[in-house]
């Protein structure tokens, strides 16, 4: 059998027949993307509400009966796990990956549409298992999102019987779902690009998602292995991780297991995981910045190399999360060094973003607000990471609010700002409508200023030595009473930011019906996803013929060109004039609103 390139094979598109096959059991990547995204955002709201409950307790202790120490631990744990895995990972890869990969690659769909559908339903199953843990006896696990043994399975920890089992099960199911999706994303990017679209002509979004997926495929196995072994420890009484231990005076049946082994496995997954979230964000933000600055991304090749370098390095820094767990000082030295090295390609990306803005023809559209906001928060979070990467500085700061501030700036707020940038940027493509500009800008300012109001003071609390994951401060000598006032202020800011997210939801639902019609390419974007014959793209994406790509996706403000962008599928001979492109900056629909 001679091999026929994928895009040349007769397309056996599965054509949806009924409403159910079209919107429920759909194999269309765009529908699956929305299912993934919607589910992720729904659980994300659960996690958000949990964090507000925790903040109420911290800001105004003893005023809420609803929260006791146990439910506080459960809230911390579920908040962290949901945010990192079930919201961010699922939304970036399952949501944006699914929507954008086939469109940006000029393909009709993922290469394995059925597997893609299965991936979503298995993901939903993992979410349901996780949510079920709220309703079982003892409630969800309260061991912290790091799930360290032996504490997570001790009777004193909430959810040590049912909660932890459901958590581990749900993670294992999630990993199965991720692997099905991940194989699809990687294979589609490698094998199904349209004619002329070489790897180096891919938008950075695709590069970020591509490398992040590879990281996920290699890192999630560590979590899977750890979860299986811990399940066996919990259910069958093995001692992979559980050491000999005495609980309320009587020895348990465990003997000799290694909790440190768990930590190594967990962080071998856990550090790459932060880049599984960060790399797609890097990619998306690069494309948003370049489009709205009407300028090609600065240093495209270096951006790609940096993504690859970060991906590789992220597998050799994991033990910087374990400086205080007790390890050979030479190991600490090694991991501190690699941690500082990974900051080099990361910083390079930041410089390139800033240089992309330099002398650009910047359009201050809403996605641009969020993208620039991201540059601020990411620099802040990245700089504190450099401090924590050094063993001697980390020792006193570890497990304090300084760490909480660091990782929220860098992997909480920053990716979330990119998510909003991307949601606003691609909303016209997905829905065919523009969002409401004023609401969106209000949403930005509340979110951006609010996160600073929340997280900047946390750095200071960390310096004071306020420990992380504590239900109440109690009376300590080293923490001044004024720390409590700060906590109250943070809580008020958090409540405001939480409420401000309603603006976003009101906006996207209101605009579905009442937003202005977006037209086919409202931002004047050069990349392929905006060049489909229909907006929003319909099943099969490209009509009768797949596109052919003649150039990279960043041909903005090309000297001598008639318009300020040239779409990727425009041949050299037909570079269009301004009116052919239906793009007139003076009638930019997004500008008209205010």
């Amino acid at each position, binding site marked *: *059998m001679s*091999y026929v*390139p*994928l*895009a*040349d094979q007769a397309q056996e598109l599965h054509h949806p027949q009924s409403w159910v096959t079209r919107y429920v059991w759909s194999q269309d990547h765009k529908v699956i993307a929305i299912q993934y995204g919607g589910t992720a955002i729904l659980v994300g709201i659960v996690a958000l509400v949990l964090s507000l409950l925790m903040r109420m307790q911290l800001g105004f202790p003893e005023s809420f009966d609803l929260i006791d120490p146990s439910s506080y631990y459960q809230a911390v744990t579920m908040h962290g796990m949901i945010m990192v895995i079930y919201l961010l990972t699922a939304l970036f890869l399952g949501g944006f990956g699914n929507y954008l990969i086939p469109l940006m690659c000029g393909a009709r769909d993922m*290469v*394995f549409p059925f597997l893609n559908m299965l991936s979503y339903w298995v993901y939903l199953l993992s979410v349901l298992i996780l949510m079920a843990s709220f309703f079982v006896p003892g409630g969800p696990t309260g061991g912290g999102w790091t799930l360290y043994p032996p504490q997570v399975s001790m009777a004193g920890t909430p959810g040590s019987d049912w909660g932890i089992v459901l958590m581990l099960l749900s993670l294992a199911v999630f990993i199965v779902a991720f*692997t099905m999706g991940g*194989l*699809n994303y*990687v*294979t589609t990017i*490698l*094998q*199904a*690009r*349209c*004619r*002329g*679209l*070489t*790897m*180096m*002509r891919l938008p950075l979004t695709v590069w970020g998602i591509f490398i992040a997926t590879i990281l996920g*495929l*290699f890192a999630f*196995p*560590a979590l*899977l*292995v750890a979860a*299986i*072994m811990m399940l*066996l420890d919990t259910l*069958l*009484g*093995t*001692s*992979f991780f559980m050491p000999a231990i005495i609980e309320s005076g009587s020895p348990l049946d465990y*003997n*000799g*297991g*290694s909790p440190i*082994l768990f930590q*190594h496995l967990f962080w071998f997954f856990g550090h790459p995981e932060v880049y599984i979230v960060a790399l797609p964000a890097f990619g998306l933000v690069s494309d948003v910045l370049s489009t709205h600055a009407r300028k*090609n991304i600065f240093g*495209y*090749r270096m951006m*790609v*190399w940096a993504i*690859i370098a970060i991906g590789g390095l992220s597998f050799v820094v994991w033990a910087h999360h374990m400086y205080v767990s007790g390890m050979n000082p030479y190991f600490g030295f090694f991991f501190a060094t690699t941690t500082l090295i990974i900051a080099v390609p990361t910083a390079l990306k930041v410089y390139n973003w800033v240089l992309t803005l330099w002398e650009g023809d910047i359009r201050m559209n809403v996605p641009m607000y969020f993208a620039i906001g991201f540059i601020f928060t990411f620099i802040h979070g990245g700089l504190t990471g450099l401090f924590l990467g050094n063993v001697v500085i980390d020792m006193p700061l570890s497990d304090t609010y300084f760490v909480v501030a660091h990782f929220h700036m860098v992997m909480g707020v920053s990716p979330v700002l990119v998510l909003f940038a991307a949601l606003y940027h691609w909303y016209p493509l997905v829905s065919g409508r523009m969002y409401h500009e004023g609401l969106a800008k209000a949403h930005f300012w509340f979110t951006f200023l609010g996160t600073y109001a929340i997280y900047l003071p946390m750095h200071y609390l960390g310096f004071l030595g306020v420990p992380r994951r504590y239900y109440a401060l109690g009376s300590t000598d080293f923490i001044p009473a004024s720390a409590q006032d700060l906590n109250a202020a943070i809580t008020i800011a958090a409540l405001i930011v939480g409420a401000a997210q309603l603006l976003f939801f009101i906006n996207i639902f209101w605009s579905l019906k009442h937003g202005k019609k977006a037209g086919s390419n409202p931002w004047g974007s050069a990349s392929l996803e905006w060049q489909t014959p229909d907006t929003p793209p319909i099943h099969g994406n490209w009509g009768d013929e*797949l596109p*052919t790509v*003649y*150039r*990279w996706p*960043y*041909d903005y403000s090309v000297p001598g060109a008639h318009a300020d962008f040239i779409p990727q599928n425009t*041949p*050299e001979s037909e570079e269009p004039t301004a009116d052919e492109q239906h793009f007139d900056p003076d009638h930019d629909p997004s500008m008209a609103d205010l």
Partner: protein
Amino acid sequence: MSLFKHITEKPWERPGVIGGPDPETAFDAAPERVALVIFLVVASVIFSLLTVSYYVRMELPDWTPLSEPAQLWLNTGLLFVSSVLFQWARNLVTDDQQKYLMAAFVGAGVFAVLFIVGQLAAWNSLQSAGHFVASNPATSFFYLLTGLHALHLLGGLWVWSKSLIRLLSGCEVQDLRLSIELCTLYWHFLLIVWLVMFAILSNT
């Protein structure tokens, strides 16, 4: 694909169609094969991490080495035959010979099933000798590793049985060529994983 050549390309300098008239693919292979190879790498990561954990856990004082049942030698033989039969089936489809194809393909699956039965028998004999999952970390690892390996094999058998149904219902043999090739690859991989695991288990 030379990765280095690809990522040093300067995309802004060469407008026009580059890379010839065909759609862009990184590898000259069916997407199923590419996906399977990536999956094999993922599975290797799983088994490697388990191996590392095995050696780490072994250093701790409560470890009592387990003497594996002799049954495993027989099982190794069964899996080996299964792999050889797959290779044979693969060679037959490549040469477009249908005569023994059914025998080779069915036989390959049957021997894999026998391997799993054999593994269960090994579990049984360990249990009757008093080695349960939680008795000692060495036995825990034994059950875990063999169990995960068998699960992977069961996944392969599921694909095998789907192809078998198509073969029995008289589909064009060439339509099954890719499935047979990929099964063969997967089986060789699982044979290698088993040999490595068996070596580690019996040497420690």
